[in-house]
């Protein structure tokens, strides 16, 4: 039983200096890029700017999950990953659904101000 306990304790990954520093450097790069792009007035195309900002944010979230939260498929026998995926699905449905429904609700209302 004690072997089980020690194995269990080792399962909580604390990472290494190397992994934390790698994560930190990646996070800094992925933060500086969108801030630099937006603060210098954006790229020539607005869509491209939006894409760069969203893409770096997505990658940075994955970096944080992996290097800081030690999120790996095997953590807690896979249950952490399953609950994360479940949350992401709910989150996607809810965010996309709210924006979609409310956009159409707004579009079908009487126009209030001509400026928007």
């Amino acid at each position, binding site marked *: 039983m004690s072997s089980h306990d020690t194995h269990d304790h080792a399962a909580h990954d604390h990472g290494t200096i190397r992994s934390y520093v790698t994560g930190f450097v990646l996070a800094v790069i992925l*933060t500086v890029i969108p801030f630099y792009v937006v603060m210098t007035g954006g790229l020539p195309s607005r869509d491209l700017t939006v894409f760069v900002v969203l893409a770096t944010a997505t990658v940075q*979230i994955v970096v944080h999950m992996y290097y800081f939260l030690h999120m790996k498929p095997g953590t807690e026998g896979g249950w952490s990953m399953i609950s994360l995926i479940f949350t992401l699905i709910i989150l996607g449905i809810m965010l996309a659904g709210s924006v979609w429904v409310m956009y159409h609700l707004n579009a079908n209302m009487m126009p209030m101000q001509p400026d928007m």
Partner: protein
Amino acid sequence: MTDDVRSFHADEEPHHPEGHSTMLGFWIYLMSDCLIFAVLFAVYAVLGRSYAGGPGPRELFDLSLVAVNTSMLLLSSITYGFAMLEMARDRVKPMVVWLIITGLFGAVFLGIEIYEFNHLIHEGAGPQSSAFLSSFFALVGTHGLHVTFGILWLITLLVQVGRFGLTDFNKRRLMCLSLFWHFLDVIWIGVFTFVYLMGLI
């Protein structure tokens, strides 16, 4: 029959030492917290362009301040990581030092955020001025409130470690706070991306 039952229990119980499932339970709490933030992000996505004739992000947000805030939170994330590495090696003093540095970075983050909120309210852009500002204060304020409680929790654990040492209980608590702290940094990525950067593109 009774013999069977007894042996069944004797076999099973050691598989579940105390605190065995705490980390998973705390992770599931964080996922539910994630949903709270998702709701607030959805509200901001819906209301974020309703300025009610008042000021919008372009007039209100100061990106350099947000950049400083972001770096504070990021630095506090890595210093917490260093504290966890010291904890894994049972070195209490360096761990406490890293935790205090983490708490200071968190406090600076909060200070800048309170300064920003105060500044906005004095400019007449308080939470009651428009739907955009209501949802902005609700979202960013909830994150700030989480950081506040994170700092209170950190102070509590520093007192605990000071009094009782690095016991298994305290290690588990510090690991939970570690998840909480890094999780708040992940939420902040969403905040600076969707609220500040997207607002200014």
